[in-house]
């Protein structure tokens, strides 16, 4: 298994270089270093000298990907791409364009992101699986029918509607929790209750339907018929046998997102004023802060690769037949 893990880690390197290159090209197709300098220096009273100085200080005065004038290897290394990318592989994210340390920002903002993302993930998973099992249990009854109708209806509603509707109903009309904001420690609870609730509810439709499909597929298998023939109660069949055997597709969807929980939620964090990494990424995109965008995309890619690796590893835990070689 160790060899497998090492091989996967080595595969990750070209993937990360590729992701980095695509991010770089996409970003600089839209924004030139001049645009970035103007964005950061403001629209008023900016002189060409100030723009040049800004670019020079940040290393944006070089060629983007290929330096024709440099000798030898310098053609590749003396470029913005090389300079900005190599350090990322050592997890040195450098400074944002406003000179704040990116690593410090990530460390500070990870907590609020996780405070929102972990409960949404865990509670959502539990609720979706439970609801899907119930629908599977009552399959072909009015409960199943209306359950599916409800799921389709919930899937069709935009997340933004859940957020604004939830804020309106729970905070504005019922005055139960603050509309937005964040605080550290236990005080965080009153701020994350509503976004967690909304995150869970908005995910029920798609999540439950997906798991219901998995469970129904499992319930048509021979081992379920055998279990029933043995006279086992339906609840035992479902919870002990079907759920266990449905774990592989469940894990495929669930484990891969665990590392990505660190990245936070772009929409919910903005609307609920939670100072997490999702909100950080959105701010950076709006401010054309390439240093932050590049770092967040890189971290996202690394976490996604870790997620895929963990998913593969988790298969060996839930299915003894699987060997990773």
């Amino acid at each position, binding site marked *: 298994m160790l060899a497998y893990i090492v091989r996967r880690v080595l595969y990750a390197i070209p993937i990360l270089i590729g992701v980095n290159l695509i991010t770089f090209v996409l970003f600089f197709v839209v924004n030139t270093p001049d645009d970035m300098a103007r964005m950061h220096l403001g629209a008023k009273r900016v002189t060409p000298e100030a723009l040049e100085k800004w670019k020079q200080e940040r290393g944006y005065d070089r060629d983007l990907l290929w330096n024709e004038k440099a000798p030898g290897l310098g053609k590749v290394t003396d470029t913005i791409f090389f300079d900005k990318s190599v350090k990322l592989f050592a997890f040195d994210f450098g400074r944002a364009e406003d000179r704040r340390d990116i690593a410090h920002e990530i460390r500070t903002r990870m907590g609020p992101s996780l405070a929102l993302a972990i409960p949404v993930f865990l509670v959502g998973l539990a609720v979706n699986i439970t609801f899907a099992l119930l629908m599977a*249990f009552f399959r072909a009854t009015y409960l199943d029918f209306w359950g599916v109708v409800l799921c389709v209806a919930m899937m069709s509603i935009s997340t933004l509607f859940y957020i604004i509707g939830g804020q309106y109903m729970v905070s504005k009309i019922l005055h*139960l929790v603050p509309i*937005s904001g964040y605080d550290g420690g236990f005080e965080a609870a009153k*701020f994350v209750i509503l976004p967690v609730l909304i995150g869970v509810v908005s995910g029920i439709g798609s999540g439950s339907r997906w798991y219901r499909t998995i469970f129904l597929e499992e319930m048509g298998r021979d081992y379920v018929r055998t279990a029933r023939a043995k006279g086992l109660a339906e*609840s035992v069949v479902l919870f002990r046998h079907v759920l266990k055997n449905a774990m592989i597709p469940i894990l495929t969807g669930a484990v891969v997102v665990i590392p990505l929980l660190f990245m936070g939620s772009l929409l919910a964090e903005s609307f609920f004023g939670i100072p997490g990494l999702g909100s950080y990424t959105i701010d950076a995109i709006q401010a054309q802060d390439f240093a932050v965008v590049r770092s967040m995309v890189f971290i996202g890619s690394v976490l996604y690769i870790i997620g895929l690796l963990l998913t593969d590893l988790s298969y060996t835990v839930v299915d003894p037949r699987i060997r990773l070689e």
Partner: protein
Amino acid sequence: MLMLFVAGCGEVWNDPYPRSERGANILYSAFVNRPKHLDPVQSYTVDESLFTRQVYEPPLHYHYLKRPYELIPLTAAEVPKPKEIDGGKFTVYEIRIRPGIRYQPHPAFVERNQALSASEIKKLKTPYDLPLGTRELVAADYVYQIKRLAHPRLHSPIYGLMAEYIVGLPEFADKLKKLNRPGWIDLREHVLAGVEEVDRYTYRVTLKGRYPQFVYWLAMPFFSPIPWEAEKLFHQPGMELKNFTLDWWPVGTGPYMLRENNPNARMVLERNPNYRGMPYPSEGESSDGEAGLLKDAGKTMPFIDRVVFSREKESVPYWNKFLQGYYDSAGISPENFDHAVRVAVDGGAEPSPEMLERGIELSTAVAATVFYFGFNMKDPVVGGNSERARKLRQAISIAVDMEEYLSIFLNGRGIVAHSPVPPGIFGAREGSEAMNPITHVWRDGREQRRALAEAKKLLAEAGYPEGTDAKTGAPLVLYFDTTSRGPGDKARLDWWRKQFEKLSIQLEVRETDWNRFQEKIRKGTQQVYGLGWHADYPDPENFLFLLHGPQARTDGAGSNSSNYASAEFDALFERMKSMPNSPKRQQIIDRMVEIARRDAPWIFGFHPKDYTLRHQWLANVKPNDMAGNTMQYLRVDPQRRAEFRRQWNRPVVWPVLLLLLALAISVVPAVRTYRKRERMAARPAA
């Protein structure tokens, strides 16, 4: 049951602030965009001045209540008078500051803190964890800051402008550039010819030629004092890694000090215990007494102990928290306008009945801003000084109905501009004298837009009868460059097309992002475009320079985006900019405005109105576009606020209980079905 019990006790559940803050003398406000810079050498935006202006004290500031805006001393003993030497070749400003002003408590003033070990720095959560000290403000601190304008590692947006005027500043910048090395550069060791410390409390600035507007710059944070100790402290290795820099932790002598700096969520200003205190003004405009703005006359400011700014990126939660009493004041976003404001037939605005019921009050003021729609004067069709192009521009200026624009898209929040100079700024006229006679006529005691027939006549005289080129027979097609390209902008862009259609001119809208738009303006490839300008200082020069020929955008870094050039206008501008306010200056401005109206390089657009709502417990609010240091004038009544918050935010629990009950009931048939199934001996045949 517990929820019901707590709800019955009158406890508020949706309070976003810590319990310890309840009943405290705190002002609650919000900010939308995180500040980029809090170092006064770089900070230039309104978002940043919300913080910097409460902390830093330049030598001068603006009177809080008087209009037109009046410059008064802040730390200076008096407003400095320019002294011309060498027959006007140089101008000297000698600024004397008041003795006895002390800095806020800060670690920079404790000598031991200037030599911290790496481990000591690593442990710090904020710079205020270190022992704090203070010292007296001296003239050398102002000199130090002016030198920082030329610092090679700082990007002062006004360096270019000041290098034109302050004697020796470009040479000083070159010298620093050569010295540029990592770590702290002690600017005290380097002489700047045009800025000198006369004595402990006096410094002198020498300018090349005349520049009367310089005195306004002395009221901006760029000219605030910076103690060298603060720069030295923050340059210690390890400080920057913790984001401890002067750019994030301001050090000043003002009424407040920044104690919590989390631009992602919350910024907190706390009363500076070393602040000398200033008396609340005892005079203002004639209506200020009636508005209750003089009740605190003579009392020592600041009135509020802390100001808590929370970040609100979205307008929905911001507005709802204001209505719940968790923000003391708020602006009005377009989507909330109808909910918040009732516009009377005469155009006057008052709070809606719902706002009045909550005791919410409304303040409005015309901003020192102009939004204009310009023609590129280098464009072969709309530009140039030919009679043909001039008449075309005049025709379009008449046809574009800005009154309708304001009514449809801004809920009437603005007034039509007739010149670049907004009301309240010297040079702006009132009544019929303010009217642009090219686009309007004075009838029945008010201005009215000229009839479309007049515009069509001008268009025909320009050689485009019915919007067709008389020479070629081709339809006239113009291009409007804009950054408005979201779905919400469609109505606005359709409106623009319709305005041109009135003259049978086809308008092609070229939607573009901000960067490309700026590039077009720089290269002069735009044809018709829209931009705005907010005053740096209340002087007509700060608006009329937008049409000054030598400051054309295509020729350099000027702000004349229309690339307008008129020899007469430019000559008058050169004379006007160096004059003190006087009837003669007014006369020159009148002539300049007349030339600009005739040549019509702009459709003058509008001056927006700022609308601010405030709760009844917040006093002394008067919009002031120039003075940023307004927090110290405000007063809150925390007890009253707490009462209203309780009244408006009682938790409503019964719908939740009802929902839980409904869920519980819905489980019953499911349980029954389950039991029935479990008891079945065999499945019925399909």
